[in-house]
Structure formats: C-alpha cells, structure tokens
C-alpha cells in the first residue's frame, strides 16, 4: 500500500499538458524562420495587419473546437460565415442605424442553422460530417439567392467598417474580440459547471448518459454556440472587407479544423484547449502571410499549407499523448520488475 513508485505530480501535469505543446514549438520555429528570412514580417505594421485575420480564424476555430470536443465536426462553416456577412450588407442597408439589427439578425440566423445541425446530429444521431456538409450546402444556396436581392457592389454600413479598421492599443478591435472570446471559453471550461459537464460529455457520451448528464442538450448547444461564433467572424469579416461578396467564407473550411488539430485537440472528443487553438490560428495565419511575403507562387502556397496541416497532425494531440504514455508505461514496468526483484 505504498505509493513509492508512483510518478510525481509534475509528470502527470506534463503528460496532460504535452498534447498542447507542439503548437507553441511551431510558433517558435516560425518566428525563428521569419527572423532570418523575412524580418519585415515581425515588424509592428505587418503584425497589426495579420492580427484581425488571425483573430477571425481563431474565432471560427474556437467554434469548430466546441464541435470537435463533442466528437463531431462542422463543415457548414463557410456557408454560415458567408450568410452572416451577407446579412450585414443586406439588413445593414448601408445605414449606420441598422448595425445592431443586422448583427442580431446575422447571429440569430446562425443560431438557427446551428440548432438544425445540433438536432440532426445530437438529437437524431446522424453523421456529423455529412449532415453539416449538407446543411452548409443548403445555406450556400440561400446565400446565393439572398445575395441577388441587393446590388453586387453593396457595402456594409460605413460605421461598421470604420469600427473594424480602428485601432485599440494599436491593434484592430477584431483581435481583441477574438482574445475575449478565447478567455471567456477558457474560463467556462475551467471554472463553470456547464463547461465541465460539456467536457465530460465530449470525453465519453455513453458514460455521461449513464451518469444522468443530458448528452443531447450539450451536443445541440455545441453546434449552436459554434454557429454563433462563425457568424461573429462573418460579421467582423464583412466589416474588414466592406463588400464581402458571396464567397467570403470559402477559405474557412479547412483552416479552422487545421487550427483545432494543430492546437492539440483530440479528434475523438473531450480534450481541447481554447488558448492553444487561438495560438494555432495565429500560427497558420502567420505561415500564410510569410509564404506570401516570400513570394511563393499561389499554387505552391496551397501545397505547403496542406503539408503543414498533415505535419501538424503527425506530431500533435493523440499521438503525442500516446507516445508519452508508452514511455511512462515502459518506465513503470521496469519499476515493477525492479521492485519484484527486491521483494
């Protein structure tokens, strides 16, 4: 009944935290490479130009993260995001008075999309991949029809685009929005009962059901909150682009998923860190920017981006933790055999 051979508390903390390490190493590596090759990228101007776009990716990635924690995946991101941006133009009607209504309309519509996703997946237990892809398709159809109801050159209300391009402490307010959302999620997971239950549902829905936790409601709200986050990003993107067009969200399909995975989330659910997802989003944005600054051909940019995501998957999350676990188990086994010899 002794606990002499048990690994120390620090090792536990290391094992638990190890899955979130690679993204920070990757950022460090990116910074080093940038400092050598493209020092201009690390200047204040370049960084403040990246910040809002990194934050947009982070916000969508955080939504995707909520879904991935439940063991699902959401491919309706581009549709939802584009629709929210279009609503900013359509409902906004180029008048500053309409900004609050437009934002509420965008977020409300997104919540509805999330609810549909959630009910189909969390309630009716359909496959998340196909359901969200199909729902995204429907939404894109709606966007196309809706986009024809106002002129192509229509812009978001001027006040809104002005606000997104202001600077708060030298950085776009979109960046601070992303940071606040990240911190809110961190607090929710760490300090609230709702966040805790949500994590348990993600880690093992079957057990959660046995334990009397309402699994469906948790899953449905994951899709809803996620959709609201996509819409938030869409609304902000509309402000940045002024005239978002009907393909504004197209690039937000793979990016958020990549950020979540590189951020160390477990694709089987339950484990993810808002902070490292946020960091991963900035890593990917920074990488993208660097490739552009270096002047890589667009085709090559796509290839490199894809390879980095595959590389990220190779060294992150579940694989890291498995490797660490294996090392620990070997150690424990040798400990045990030693103690047997002593006995």
């Amino acid at each position, binding site marked *: 009944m002794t606990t002499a051979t048990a690994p120390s508390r620090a090792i*536990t*903390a290391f094992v638990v935290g190890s899955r979130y390490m690679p993204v920070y190493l990757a950022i460090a590596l990116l910074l080093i490479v940038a400092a050598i090759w493209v020092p201009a990228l690390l200047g204040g101007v370049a960084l403040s130009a990246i910040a809002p776009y990194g934050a947009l990716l982070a916000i969508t990635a955080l939504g995707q993260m909520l879904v991935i924690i439940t063991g699902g995946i959401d491919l309706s991101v581009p549709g939802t995001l584009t629709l929210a941006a279009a609503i900013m133009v359509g409902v906004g009607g180029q008048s500053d008075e309409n900004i609050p209504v437009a934002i509420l309309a965008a977020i409300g519509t997104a919540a509805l999309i999330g609810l549909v996703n959630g009910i189909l997946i969390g309630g009716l237990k359909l496959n998340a991949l196909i359901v969200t892809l199909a729902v995204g398709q429907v939404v894109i159809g709606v966007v196309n029809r809706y986009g024809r109801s106002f002129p192509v050159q229509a812009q978001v209300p001027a006040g809104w685009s002005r606000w997104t391009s202001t600077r708060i402490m030298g950085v776009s307010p979109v960046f601070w929005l992303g940071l606040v959302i990240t911190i809110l999620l961190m607090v929710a997971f760490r300090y609230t009962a709702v966040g805790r239950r949500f*994590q*348990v549902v993600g880690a093992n829905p079957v*057990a959660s059901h046995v334990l*009397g*936790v309402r699994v469906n409601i948790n899953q449905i709200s994951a899709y809803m909150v996620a959709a609201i986050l996509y819409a938030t990003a869409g609304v902000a993107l509309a402000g940045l682009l002024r005239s978002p067009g009907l393909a504004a969200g197209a690039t937000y399909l793979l990016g958020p998923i990549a950020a979540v995975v590189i951020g160390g989330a477990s694709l089987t659910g339950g484990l993810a860190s808002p902070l490292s997802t946020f960091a991963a989003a900035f890593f990917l944005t920074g990488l993208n920017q660097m490739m552009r600054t270096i002047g890589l051909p667009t085709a090559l940019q796509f290839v490199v981006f894809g390879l980095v995501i595959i590389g990220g998957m190779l060294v992150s999350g579940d694989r890291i933790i498995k490797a660490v676990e294996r090392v620990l188990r070997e150690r424990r086994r040798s400990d045990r055999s030693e103690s047997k010899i002593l006995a």
Partner: protein
Amino acid sequence: MTERNPEGESTTGPPLPVSPPSGGRAGEAGKGVVLALAGVSRQFGAVRALTDVSFECRAGEVHALVGENGSGKSTLLGIASGFVKPDRGSVHIGGVRLRRDSPALARKLGLAMAYQDTSLVQMEPVKNNLFLATRPEKRPPFWRRKKWARQLLTEFDLDLELFPDSPAGFLTLAERQMFEVAKALATDPKVLLLDEPTTALGPDEVEALHRTVAKCRDRGVGIVYVSHRLPEVLEIADRITVLRDGRNRGTFEARATSESELVELIVGRPFEAAFPAAASRTVEPRVVLRVEGLQGQSFGPLSFTLESGEIVGIAGAEGNGQPQLFDCLAGRVPPRAGKVVCEGTELNLISTHEAVGAGLMLLPGDRKREALAPVLGVRVNTTVQALRQFATLGFLRRNAEKRQVARLVDQLEIRTPSLDQPVEFLSGGNQQKVSVARTFLRKPAVILAYEPTQGVDVGSRFDIYQALRQRCDGGAALLVKSSDPIELSGLCDRVLVMSRGTIVEEIPGEDLDERRITEAIVRGPGLSKAGRSPLGVAMPTATTSRSA
C-alpha cells in the same frame, strides 16, 4: 502423480488430482486423441486465467468442461481454437501441433467451433451463410447450394424449421444456436467445440441439440462441450473435466460421478476473500425501492423491494436478463410494463437524468465505456455527478472540490499520483473506486452495482466492499449483480437468483453461502421464452409453469 511435462516447461504446478494427460508425447499418445492441450498457461494482465492445464478429447466422445463464470473455460477454448496464444504449453489437433495462434490453421487441422455470440451475416439467406462458412474445397457448386444446405441440415438431424432461403437474421435465438452447430459441422471437423450451446435453448431444443451431438459422436467426432448446466452435462457427456480458478480439478467418467460431487469440485475453493462485517443496522429499515411486475426485452415480470441499509445480491448464470434489468432500472432502456417506485416517487424510466435525480445511481460493469471519461482526470470524473454541490451561480469552487476529492482519494485509498491523473492510467481497481467515490458525494438512495469487482485486483476488492458497505450503513440500499458466488455470499444480506429473466429463488441471509448460490444457479432452468423469441414476446405457455 505429477508427471514430467513433455514440453519440459512448467512442472512446478500442483499435481492434477485425477487422470493427468496420458504420458509420452501429448499429440500422438492415447490413440484417437483429436484435441490435446498440455500444460497450458495464460495470463491476462494481473489475472491468471489458466495455470498449467492439460486436457484431451478423444475421437467419438463428448468431453464436457464445467466450471463457474471466470474459471477459465472460455480461455481454454480460445487457446484450443487458436484465437488466444498460450503463454506456455502446447496444443495438438488431430495429432498435429498448432504452432501458431491462428484460427485459420486450427480450422485447417480439423477444429470447428460453434460460437456463443453468433457470427452470421444477418441479411444473407441461411444457405449463403452456410456456404460462406464452408472451406472452398468442400463447397458445392454455387447454384446447387440450396439443395446442399437442406441436405446438410437434415443429415445432422438438426430439427430446424429452417428455410434455406430465409435471411439468417430471421432465425430465433435458439435456431441460430443450432445453425451455429450446423455451420461448424459443415466443415467436417475432427473436433467440435461447443461453447455454452444451450444458453438460449428450451428443453425441447436442448434435446434436439443433444441428438445432433450424439450423432456426431457416433461418426467419430470429438466434442468438447462447455456448459455450466450440470443436469445437461451429465446427460450428454462421456467424460467431465472441472475447471476452477484456471486449474484443472480433475477429469471424471460421467457415469461414475454425480451432480453433488461436481458442485463440490466447482465451488470447493478455500475461502480467501475477506468481507466487511454487516454492521448492526443503525438505520431504521424502510423500503426505498419497490419494483412491481417490471418487464423488459429479456427479463421479467419480476417484483422485489429494497430496504435502506441492506445489500441485495443478484445471482444467476450469464444471459438471464441481469444486465437488461440493471439498464432498465437506471433509465437507459425503457421497460415494457411494470412500475418502479424510488423513495415514494414513481419513475418514468425513460431517462437516466430522471433516475439519477430520483436517487438511483448505476455503477456500470463496463467501466471504461460506461462509467468513466478515460482521458479526464480523477477529480473531474469523481465530481461530475455532484457539480451542483461545488457551484455558486454556475461557477465552481475549485478549492472546495479539490479538498473533497482529496478526502475521498484518501478514504477509499485510490492510488493516483495526482488528482488530475487521467483515469485511463489507473488500474481497474482504482478506476472502480473513482466510480464508487461518486456515490459518496451524491449520496443516492439506491446504488445499482453491476459486477463491482470485475477486473479488480484482490487488494482493491476489500476496499470496494468496504466502501459499498459504508454507503449501505449510511442508509442507501444496494443491488449488486455478481457472477462470483463468494462475493455474493460475503457481501450481501440476501440474494435473489435470476433465471429465465425472473427471480426464481430468494436466499435469505441466514442460508447464504456460496454453495447454496452455486446450486441454485446450476440447477436453474434456461432462458425464458421471451428471451428466445425474436420479437421478445413471451409465448402464452411460458408463464404457466413457473410463477415466481
């Protein structure tokens, strides 16, 4: 009596009491031995499933293998059929050594096995299933398979109303079991392994199956017949081998032995486990759970009551409706009929949330899948059902939580390096303690413990018994399902024996010992008609013979 093992390994095991394997080379000696296992051992983690077991089956005999749940029968079959690799020892099939743990090779050497859980392609017709199961060189031309199938089924006197064209999924449980045997026989084996072939069968079907078995024996097939039902075993077997705790306790001529002798051997281990004393009841006993006429997919109708401060055991052979009963009480699967009242409130039994809220907590047997979030820490897992106690306006008081969990870790002696250690890295015993610790926080009125010490090391068992007893002394009522009669007799205040999905016997505290429980189990009848019918509906005649 100990003979030097021909393989030269593992001669340290205790002597076999009766008829050790015939001397010389296990495979060749003893003319007509079609299956010979010599000195086989196998360990799973910390559990020694088999220790130096030797076993042989001759051509043209039915050799029964009996023992309790967990005595090593399934492992022995697994090794014989090449699914499980023995740590040491050898397997010979038809005189040829099985060099690798390969089921395909075992089949090639002439071994066939009828599986307990059926291995059918549900949507395909019977004839195609049979065709698929047969080795290519023994298959008829594809277009003649229907005629071939019908011929084969009648040849073995399989008294089935089988239509070769009907999908295999339409067969009843009993028919599927028979069909498994037919499939095994289609390969024209030298030795046939039957793993609990009668679990799903009623008396008539057992008789039919035994006719088939007898026919195979007369054709010179060696048959290994695993069962826990002694009356059936004594009827069909030529020789009987008893396994207990992974050791061979002797092989006997069926004619020269009796049921009570066998029970003695199956049970007769020294009393090793320690149990906490049933405290003199400090709480005024009152009924906390009343179950009336509860009926579900494969159990019932059954009625019983639980009083506060008592531990009631559920005994019975596997597959008699125990897991379904527990799932139903926990609100996981709604019942067909009946009423459950917990602490005065009648439950709808359609939601686990409601059941937990009403004070019914299930400790599932399959911990990794159904009880724990393996990747999350001890603290998170322990408090998940009691978060309200630690929350103010939805925000957790983390220090209070940590203190409580640390106290429970101490009290239950959960061995973990840190409160945030993911539970997947804990041993089975400590995982179960985490599961039990939840009941200390939530303090439910009724605890349903399904196999509370399955996969738990001996050291932790007592801690778990003690923890359960503590909950009980604190006023909870416990319902414990266990397949271990020792555990039931040591832990429980009374035991209900389940068979055919209903309670067939109640053993009161004063009569409670493992022998009494084992006797009740091995003499019990088979599964209910309700369990065997594909629709799960009881036939009108089923209930008339027995009313519990």
